[in-house]
């Protein structure tokens, strides 16, 4: 069949792009001089701390999110759309900006502590849990709970014995996602963590850029990859075992009917309010110089006074960021659309690619950046400093998100529509365009906006690939934070607010294509 070739070609292209960094890490990591890093006790301390912070972050995120998930998806709530938006937007905010916002918010004594890291991670991931679990919770047939109650179960027992078993796969899925994201978190830890207590990602970066011990970095990257893959397979198996067919319906949200309901609603509003505080703290901090209100930091980033090569004007940094992000967005959308179509075609032929789909999400930005760096050093051609490396890395981070956004839409298309188009005389390409193309079109705009926002704020891959004289905004923020003094901190906050503003514009302009998310 001709369409089989059409299906395989994009799979090949996407797989090649996404797998290149992974394969180069595998090859570099499997050597004895790389694996030697596993003999060091420091390595195991780092792995332990990485796992600990990921575990705590995940538990806190899920615990904070569940009551809000209930209120937002089962109860009638005032300002529901706004509240949901406030809870979910943090997920796409630049990691270093969030890290900096928490530094601006938290007292100095919490700087570099586990608490700060866990709080910032929860800020990111609460919305993810609300979305993943809420999507399932809102479809639970409310009569299941009625049955439990009329059989004599008090409300809490009904929750434990009826609702919870039904939610378990979704809770596990969101737990796995949050664990994966926090285990491989980089930007937040670079900004908020203590240098004395690195995670695997930070250590890979330190070994690569500071001690130039590439073999050890490759060994660590391999360890990280193995842990993520094993965790993904384990969680997929767990989810399959707990999955069940519970009756689904679109039950209308109910008015609050108990003290618990009222507490959950109150909690939801408080949580939404709480999530706005770090961003507010950051904005206010960028306007404070000495002990008064001032635009000093904004003036300083616009025209840095240092005069050294390290002080680059904000205008040129923003231009660089936008140029990279534009290229990355283009590439991510092409890869994402091709990837989603390929998975969809393969699924229709009975091949399940769910795990393969999650894998690129699990490959961390640092692995992508480090892998591409290895290719650029050891590859047939020396590509170091090549302008396209940065957008390439950013697009590989963003492409899986584009895929995740488009796949449900592709899956929801009734295949009979294509037959209808075909019977009306449309050729295969025209039929595809008339049905799928139109429907994906709008969603692609939304996905492109998301890819652009992610690329703009991307830190993990960019940190390995960017040239020193051409930093992006997140790189410059981290660089400023690495230097002492109020002026550098102030400038960093001002740059962070600029990046937030650009991200907000991009997301708002493309919002209509993303209503499904």
């Amino acid at each position, binding site marked *: 069949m001709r369409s089989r070739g059409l299906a395989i070609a994009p799979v090949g292209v996407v797989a090649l792009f996404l797998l290149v960094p992974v394969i180069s890490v595998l090859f570099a990591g499997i050597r004895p001089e790389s694996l030697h890093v596993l003999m060091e006790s420091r390595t195991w301390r780092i792995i332990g701390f990485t796992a600990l912070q990921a575990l705590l972050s995940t538990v806190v995120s899920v615990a904070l999110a569940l009551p809000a998930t209930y209120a937002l998806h089962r109860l009638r709530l005032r300002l529901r759309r706004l509240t949901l938006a406030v809870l979910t937007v943090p997920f796409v905010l630049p990691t270093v900006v969030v890290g900096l916002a928490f530094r601006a918010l938290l007292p100095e004594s919490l700087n570099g502590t586990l608490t700060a890291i866990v709080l910032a991670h929860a800020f990111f991931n609460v919305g993810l849990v609300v979305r993943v679990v809420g999507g399932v919770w809102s479809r639970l047939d409310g*009569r299941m709970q009625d049955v439990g*109650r009329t059989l004599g179960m008090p409300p809490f027992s009904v929750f434990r014995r009826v609702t919870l078993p039904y939610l378990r796969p979704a809770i596990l899925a969101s737990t796995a996602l949050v664990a994966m994201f926090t285990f491989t978190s980089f930007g937040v830890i670079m900004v908020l963590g203590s240098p004395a207590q690195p995670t695997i990602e930070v250590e890979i970066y330190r070994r690569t850029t500071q001690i130039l011990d590439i073999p050890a970095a490759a060994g660590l990257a391999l360890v990280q990859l193995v842990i993520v893959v094993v965790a993904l397979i384990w969680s997929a198996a767990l989810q399959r075992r707990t999955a069940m067919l519970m009756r689904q319906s679109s039950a209308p949200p109910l008015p609050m009917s108990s003290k618990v309901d009222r507490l959950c609603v109150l909690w939801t509003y408080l949580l939404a309010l709480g999530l706005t505080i770090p961003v507010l703290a950051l904005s206010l901090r960028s306007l404070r110089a000495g002990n008064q209100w001032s635009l000093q930091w904004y003036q300083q980033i616009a025209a840095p006074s240092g005069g050294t090569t390290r002080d680059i004007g904000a205008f040129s940094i923003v231009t660089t960021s936008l140029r990279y992000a534009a290229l990355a967005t283009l590439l991510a959308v092409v890869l994402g659309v091709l990837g989603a179509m390929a998975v969809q075609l393969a699924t229709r032929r009975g091949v399940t690619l769910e795990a393969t789909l999650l894998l690129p999400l699990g490959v961390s930005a640092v692995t992508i950046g480090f892998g591409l760096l290895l290719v650029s050093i050891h590859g047939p051609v020396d590509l170091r400093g090549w302008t396209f490396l940065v957008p390439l890395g950013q697009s590989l981070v963003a492409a899986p998100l584009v895929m995740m956004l488009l796949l449900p839409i592709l899956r929801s298309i009734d295949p009979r529509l294509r037959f209808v188009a075909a019977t009306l005389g449309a050729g295969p390409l025209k039929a595809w365009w008339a049905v799928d193309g139109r429907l994906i079109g709008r969603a692609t705009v939304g996905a492109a906006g998301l890819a652009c926002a992610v690329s703009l704020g991307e830190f993990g891959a960019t940190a390995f690939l960017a040239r020193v004289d051409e930093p992006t905004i997140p790189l410059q923020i981290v660089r400023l934070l690495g230097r002492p003094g109020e002026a550098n901190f102030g400038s960093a906050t001002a740059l962070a607010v600029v990046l937030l503003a650009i991200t907000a514009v991009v997301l708002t302009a493309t919002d209509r294509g993303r209503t499904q998310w």
Partner: protein
Amino acid sequence: MVNGLEVVDLCVTYEGQSLLSHLTVRVGDEIVALLGPSGSGKSTLLRCIAGVQQPDIGCITWNGVDLLTVPAHQRSIGLVFQDPLLFPHLTVGRNISFGTKDNGRVAELLSLIRMPGYADRKPETLSGGEAQRVALARALAPQPRMLLLDEPFGALDTDLRRSLTAEVRELLKSTHTPAIHVTHDEEEAYAIADRVVHLADLQRSSPF
């Protein structure tokens, strides 16, 4: 004093629309079939009696004692829906024993619904009629003082519906459980019940 259930002047509105208007009904030690077209508020009435929905005004009593202040799980009134709504993560036996601590009743109820040996089966392996019989056994297991049946055969084909109608009547009589059986099928209503009432006749000023 009235024996059994008494509903007086019950009014329910949902988003400005009247679902039930000044409904009054009494049910003693008997099986009452409640007839009415779909959307006429039959399910709403059952949900109010069971306690999973609150009426706007009116009162519901049992042997003269107020029920509205009693939460659903303490009313001891069973509810069976059109869909069996079995818990998919539990076996048939665990479904039946869900509302009772007495595991010995499982075998007894399984033989009452003529499904002995089904205790370890999973709900997804049952046919529609079998699943509905298990739902009925599950509702009877905690020995409720009354059973509410909301078009329990609505999803089944005609032959099965006929045989189940007789079976359920026998089951309710043998366990001495009074019941309200909601349906829009007159033949079924007269076959199962001691008394047949039309929902429209119970309301003082029908919204329709």
